[in-house]
């Protein structure tokens, strides 16, 4: 009987404690990042899909189609083609196909590339209604977008709380 009363007492106490704790949390500020309105800053090492790096001097892709990344990739998602143009020391890339839908973001390709011609992008919020969009030609992508000065994001960025 005494044990029962004690159990009821301590049980009741535990329930009240629990409710006190949740109520305490109730009045604390929220921790949410309101995604489309504010965003987290991706860390430097964040791994998005890979992208080609532009040579700051020439404005062209550094990649010379050595295919080391292609070989290193465990998921066979890179296909690099290049041609050796007249008067150039090395081949230059003409096609760099990435099948991002197979990529495991392992980083082997970036590590395999000795000339640092590819890096991870910060594209962390890809989504689309067609999956073809993610089979991309990184070379074309690089060509199509002109080097532009870095512009500030319109929305404020929020550091990780």
């Amino acid at each position, binding site marked *: 009987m005494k044990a029962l009363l004690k159990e009821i007492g301590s049980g009741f106490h535990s329930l009240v404690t629990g409710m006190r704790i949740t109520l305490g949390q109730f009045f604390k500020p929220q921790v949410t990042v309101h995604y*489309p309105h504010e*965003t987290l800053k991706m860390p430097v090492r964040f791994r998005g899909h890979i992208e080609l790096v532009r040579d700051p001097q020439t404005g062209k892709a550094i990649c010379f189609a050595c295919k080391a990344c292609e070989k290193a990739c465990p998921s066979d998602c890179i296909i690099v083609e290049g041609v050796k143009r007249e008067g150039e020391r090395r081949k230059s890339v003409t096609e760099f196909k990435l099948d991002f839908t197979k990529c495991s973001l392992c980083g082997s390709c970036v590590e395999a590339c000795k000339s640092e011609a590819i890096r991870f992008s910060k594209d962390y919020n890809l989504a689309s209604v067609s999956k073809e969009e*993610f089979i991309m030609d990184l070379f074309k992508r690089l060509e199509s977008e002109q080097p532009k000065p870095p512009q500030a994001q319109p929305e404020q960025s929020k550091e990780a709380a």
Partner: protein
Amino acid sequence: MLDDVLSLARANSLWPLTFGLACCAIEMMAAGASRFDISRFGAEVFRPSPRQADVMIVAGTINKKMAPAVRTLYDQMLEPKWVIAMGNCAISGGPFVFPGQYAVVEGVDKLFPVDVFIPGCPPRPEALIEGILKLEEKLTGKRRWPEVIPQ
């Protein structure tokens, strides 16, 4: 007019099916957790019964043993229904595709129509939110939220 209202309502009340498969499911849970909170879009009502769910978020690898069950679940969902393929596994089998593989289904779109694809391995929770926004965009024909261009 009525259709517009309906699709607007539907787009803002997407109840997902509680259905996690693999690694991506953890990110799906994270998207429901406080940091990302998909409830802001009214999409946190995870329904365990397919009868009450509107959208199936296929988060993870589907293999050949699982495929019939997934199809059954898809069938058991009632109209209108949508499918989001989250993660590379769901899109194409992802990292598990190699010549001579015997187990994984190379993409859920082989099983039933998929509305939104979210690539990544795993995609970040933001990407899932983006996917839900894309689905809303698809339903209502316009996007109510700012586009986020990653830097």
